[in-house]
């Protein structure tokens, strides 16, 4: 059977179970788009290519599967880079297809030519330039396998125009087998036994859970471990939802804007069990002051994460779910003693920290506090919405005041910290979970980075909600300027902003605005329970800061509380 490259591509995508592609057409992918028009795979036309990747990222996270996107060569490909880098930092499985100029023109500085594979090499798990149509099916299969297995990540496939046009005798590729790639799912049992011994000895243990727990679907196993061993749990930004926030063992988020009790507990614990984390600088603060009295266990599927940033007592390379299942099984046979008695002092200390400095703000009568908006959003959605965020204060307030009981509910650009992520990610999440309420918690700065995606949402009839915490500033940088640069607000004041209500209407969406505290709940109710795409513009306290805050370079236990 003769098939063109484009036909082969769509055939293999179908076989991989792909039902949705986010993309933007262009000259060298026109043949692929022609086949797409005949296919039942749904194509979502974004308005800028970075958003195709962000949307595929949101789709992957909310739907727990591989996201797929497609862009043309040159500027199409370079636009995808921001989205790819964000997915790479957060280990999200995305397959990115880019068009390339025909093979005979590669290297000639042809129209819309760029060395896509060269540019994306450092921000993809792997990438391919397909030079022969014969290789295309195998490469696509490999890409899906690589993206989703081991530590997941984005994989890019660059397809020259002639490769998608040429017709060949199609032979189905064999099962993927890569001799050089063999991720370690099963941990070394000796190392897991070491962890058992450390847990038995610990009196003040803490679990630090990360994005790896969510990626490997290990929430249940994590919860079991924490409850069985009566170990309090904190998590990174990426790990939120991995452990239920309603559980009494929950400490809140760790790190630069972590809770007082979470950060203090790392300073005082005698055992820290890191699971699916990479001990990034926003988590650890000053390295030599991080968990100074603790033995450290580090469980991660990626060996490079282990001992990259901090020394570890017991490294365990393995999949979080597999490792925790084994750990729980081994612990069952152990006598952990009277845990109530053993943890009594530790829990009392944590309770004390909690009452010393709980997360708090003061909502007066006159001006809306941004935290109040998020808290009401949490209450009205009963904690069950999918929350995407932009980056900055909006992201931190969402992380602090929306309490996640389940995984895959909090979708944020954690590692790259990419403004403009939230709206396209919400579009992706809504497509993956059509019955869920999806809310993008945004700032007035971030939302303008990719506001054009309102058109995508409206065109696709997606009822995503955008909650803008509008303070007229690039709030997080302004906060740093207030605290560390004598209030010199250099270029952080957005003196001119569009009228977001009118802007929503211009896109064919619904625009709502609240300016007083008593309007917050009615506006949220009206917006959240509407069937339309909605922007809710909350005009909030201009110079509110996110607290607690660990200044850059300080120990995580050295927090500014107000």
């Amino acid at each position: 059977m003769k098939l063109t490259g484009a036909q082969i591509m769509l055939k293999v995508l179908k076989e991989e179970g792909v039902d949705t592609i986010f993309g933007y057409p262009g000259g060298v992918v026109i043949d692929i788009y022609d086949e797409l028009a005949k296919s039942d795979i749904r194509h979502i036309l974004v308005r800028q290519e970075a958003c195709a990747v962000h949307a595929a990222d949101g789709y992957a996270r909310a739907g727990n599967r591989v996201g797929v996107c497609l862009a043309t060569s040159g500027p199409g490909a370079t636009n995808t880079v921001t989205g790819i880098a964000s997915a790479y930092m957060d280990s999200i499985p995305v397959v990115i297809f880019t068009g390339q100029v025909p093979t005979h023109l590669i290297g000639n500085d042809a129209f819309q030519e760029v060395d896509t594979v060269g540019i994306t090499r450092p921000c993809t798990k792997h990438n391919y330039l397909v030079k022969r149509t014969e290789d295309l099916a195998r490469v696509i299969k490999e890409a899906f396998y690589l993206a989703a297995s081991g530590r997941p990540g984005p994989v890019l496939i660059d397809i020259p125009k002639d490769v998608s046009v040429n017709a060949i005798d199609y032979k189905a590729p064999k099962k993927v087998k890569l001799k050089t790639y063999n991720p370690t799912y099963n941990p070394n049992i000796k190392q897991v036994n070491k962890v058992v011994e450390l847990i038995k000895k610990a009196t003040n243990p803490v679990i630090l859970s990360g994005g790896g727990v969510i990626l490997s679907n290990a929430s249940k196993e994590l919860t079991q471990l924490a409850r069985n061993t009566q170990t309090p749990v904190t998590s990174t930004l990426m790990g939120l939802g991995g452990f239920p926030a309603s559980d009494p063992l929950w400490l809140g988020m760790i790190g630069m804007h972590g809770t007082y009790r979470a950060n203090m507990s790392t300073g005082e614990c005698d055992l820290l069990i890191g699971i699916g984390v990479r001990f990034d600088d926003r988590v650890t603060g000053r390295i030599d002051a991080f968990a100074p009295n603790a033995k450290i266990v580090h469980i991660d599927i990626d060996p490079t994460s282990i001992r990259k940033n901090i020394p570890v007592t017991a490294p365990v390379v393995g999949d979080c779910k597999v490792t925790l299942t084994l750990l729980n099984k081994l612990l069952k046979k152990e006598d952990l003693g009277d845990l109530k008695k053993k943890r009594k002092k530790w829990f009392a200390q944590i309770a004390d920290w909690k009452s010393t400095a709980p997360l708090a703000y003061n909502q007066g009568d006159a001006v809306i506090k941004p935290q109040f908006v998020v808290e009401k959003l949490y209450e009205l959605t009963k904690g069950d919405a999918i929350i995407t965020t932009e980056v900055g204060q909006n992201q931190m307030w969402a992380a602090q005041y929306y309490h996640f009981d389940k995984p895959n509910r909090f979708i944020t650009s954690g590692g790259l910290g990419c403004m403009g992520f939230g709206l396209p990610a919400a579009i992706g999440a809504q497509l993956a979970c059509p019955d869920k309420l999806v809310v993008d918690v945004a700032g007035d700065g971030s939302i303008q980075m990719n506001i054009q995606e309102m058109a995508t949402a409206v065109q696709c009839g997606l009822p995503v909600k955008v909650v803008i915490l509008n303070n007229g500033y690039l709030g997080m940088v302004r906060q740093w300027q207030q605290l560390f640069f004598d209030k010199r607000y250099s270029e952080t004041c957005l003196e001119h902003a569009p009228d977001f209500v009118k802007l929503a209407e211009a896109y064919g969406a619904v625009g709502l605005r609240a300016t007083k505290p008593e309007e917050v709940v009615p506006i949220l109710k009206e917006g959240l329970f509407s069937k339309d795409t909605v922007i809710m513009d909350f005009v909030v306290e201009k110079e509110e800061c996110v607290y607690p805050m660990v200044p850059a370079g300080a120990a995580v236990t050295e927090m500014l509380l107000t």
Partner: protein
Amino acid sequence: MMEEKHVFSILVDNEPGVLSRIAGLFSGRGFNIESLCVAETTDPLISRITLVTTGAPPIIEQIEKQLNKLINVIKVHDLTGKEFVHREMALIKVVAKAEHRAEILRTVDIFRCKVVDVGREHYTLEATGDEGKINAILSLLKPIGIKEIARTGIIALFRDPK
């Protein structure tokens, strides 16, 4: 922590772009490359890269892990601390005026080099050995006048049990 010199022998897929993945990894993560040698092995699908780097022990550990993480890397050996043979080759073009020619040839003899090109004003020598030997030859020839040199960087293999 003390910086250590390490020799890595890396087997990789013999494909376009693989070298740039390795070089990019080193530059992107701020690791050092002191020398780098690449050539095909007996299997044309596989190349061997011999790479010399320096770093504190945790950095060396990261380098080895990061190399292993690359999809096109088949096997990484850290040869340092193990029994291995290593050699480097240098081509050295020396100024060879009449009064120095005898001395240069004596040096060639002592170090078991070869003269591979002769001109009225120069000799080009081929020297093989470990880094120390190459450096010793260079330091002896320097006062006479070295016009140009090309060094391969080291290549290395494990010693198998006898």
